[in-house]
């Protein structure tokens, strides 16, 4: 077997894990923006909260409690965000973006005051902290588990959006919110709903991704930028597009870092530039 095969294999599996994590964090962002026109820059901060929580969760019990806490904190934060942005609902995007950016900075400062500025390593729960051999190469078990969970979450989400009445309401609100209101649905509740679900997903993604990225200051903006890139490439408000774009960006990130470490971010923004030039409304539009 040539030497590059395991390297390429590792990069591909890594890319899959990163891509699925990105999907879980970006899908909330795209729904919030697509449905309610709120550009939520606090999204990265919620991811970071999840990452710090998992760093505090060394056993399975604490892992389970931590995951529940991440979900709850994300959901509550989403509710608070919807209250905070509601008065700006009819104002330009920039006003809302500035408000959520302010919230993102507050979250980052609070976390850095609580945990300091050093990297806090987060370990996978016991049993998932080992490695399994794939083609004679040792591969971290936790990343495979993340891929499994990510696939399940993506499938559940996809099914919900494409096949349920709630999903139809999501798609209708992305397409034309005024007409949703005109059939008697109070869109303020829809707004709270997407912010709660989207924010909870961001915190869960951070919790699951913690053992891969480790909790550290600056992770929030890294993830936010990646998620924004994914949302733009996928097309605002398109769940299918975000899934495709996440998997693509995951591969670009991991393959790029494996083969051309110094050029990896150029590859990423190159892909973004090409997409905007060729399909300005996103891959699937």
């Amino acid at each position: 077997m040539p030497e590059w095969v395991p390297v390429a294999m590792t990069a591909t599996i890594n890319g899959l894990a990163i891509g699925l994590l990105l999907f879980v964090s970006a899908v909330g962002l795209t729904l919030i923006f697509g449905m309610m026109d709120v550009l939520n820059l606090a999204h990265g901060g919620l991811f970071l909260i999840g990452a710090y929580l998992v760093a505090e969760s060394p056993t399975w019990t604490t892992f389970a409690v931590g995951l529940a806490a991440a979900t709850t904190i994300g959901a509550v934060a989403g509710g608070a965000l919807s209250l905070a942005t509601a008065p700006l609902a009819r104002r330009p995007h920039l006003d809302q973006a500035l408000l959520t950016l302010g919230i993102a900075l507050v979250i980052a400062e609070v976390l850095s005051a609580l945990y300091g500025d050093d990297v806090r390593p987060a370990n996978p729960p016991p049993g998932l902290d080992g490695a399994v051999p794939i083609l004679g190469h040792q591969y971290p078990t936790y990343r495979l588990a993340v891929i499994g969970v990510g696939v399940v979450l993506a499938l559940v989400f996809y099914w919900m959006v494409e096949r349920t009445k709630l999903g139809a309401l999501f798609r209708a609100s992305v397409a034309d919110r005024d007409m949703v209101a005109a059939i008697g649905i109070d869109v303020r509740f829809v707004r709270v709903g997407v912010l709660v679900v989207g924010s909870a997903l961001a915190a869960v993604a951070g919790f699951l991704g913690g053992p891969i990225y480790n909790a550290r200051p600056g992770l929030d903006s890294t993830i936010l930028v990646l998620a924004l890139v994914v949302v733009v490439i996928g097309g605002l408000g398109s769940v299918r597009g975000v899934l495709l774009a996440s998997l693509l960006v995951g591969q670009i990130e991991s393959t790029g870092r494996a083969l051309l470490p110094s050029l990896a971010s150029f590859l990423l923004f190159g892909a973004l530039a090409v997409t905007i030039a060729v399909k300005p409304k996103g891959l699937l539009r």
Partner: protein
Amino acid sequence: MLLVHDLHSGYGSGTVLHGLSLQVRTGQALAVLGRNGVGKTTLLSTLMGLVRPRRGSIRLDGCELAGRRPDQVSRAGIALVPQGRRIWPTVTVHEHVRLAVRGQSWPIQRLYELFPNLAHRRHQPAGNLSGGEQQMLAICRALATGPSLILLDEPSEGLAPGIVSHLATAITEMVQSGLSVVIVEHDLRLAYAVASDVAVMVRGTVVHTAAVDEFRNDHRRAHQLLGLEA
């Protein structure tokens, strides 16, 4: 009974409706006519609560609706079939109906009986439908909310003549079932076929109302108000 009194409305700093008053009796079908840009769409959007009125009152059966949100207006019994249809392209026909359906007056079965084409295509995303089918779907979605008054904004726009006559049949059926109708229409044959009265708008107010039979023979006035050939 819809009573609109001294309605002022517009966008940003511009005013489009200047003290408009109007009345629709229960079960009446009123055609609102007027040249491009006189504010017909703005009137319907304001009645629906999509545009906030600056002044004036909108009473439906005694209940004040001016300043209400569109979802409240919908629950009070008004439904809108908007200009340009505004169906949701990625949402299927059946999902449109399921999201909108409320009350007992128009159960899904009855809607599909009125529009058999839609029943056949119920699992298609609305974006795949023809223009005529999309218009039927927009009507279907409005009826599903069980309104007592339905607002139709240029339903015949961009449709082939054969489909317009189909549309006329469906609207007539709605009127016969006891619904009040306000229809904005450039196609006068359709307007006269379904409505019993006309209201003519000029620059944001209603300047003339008459029975259809009277107005359609009053060529001089039609020419003067609408710029039509006698």
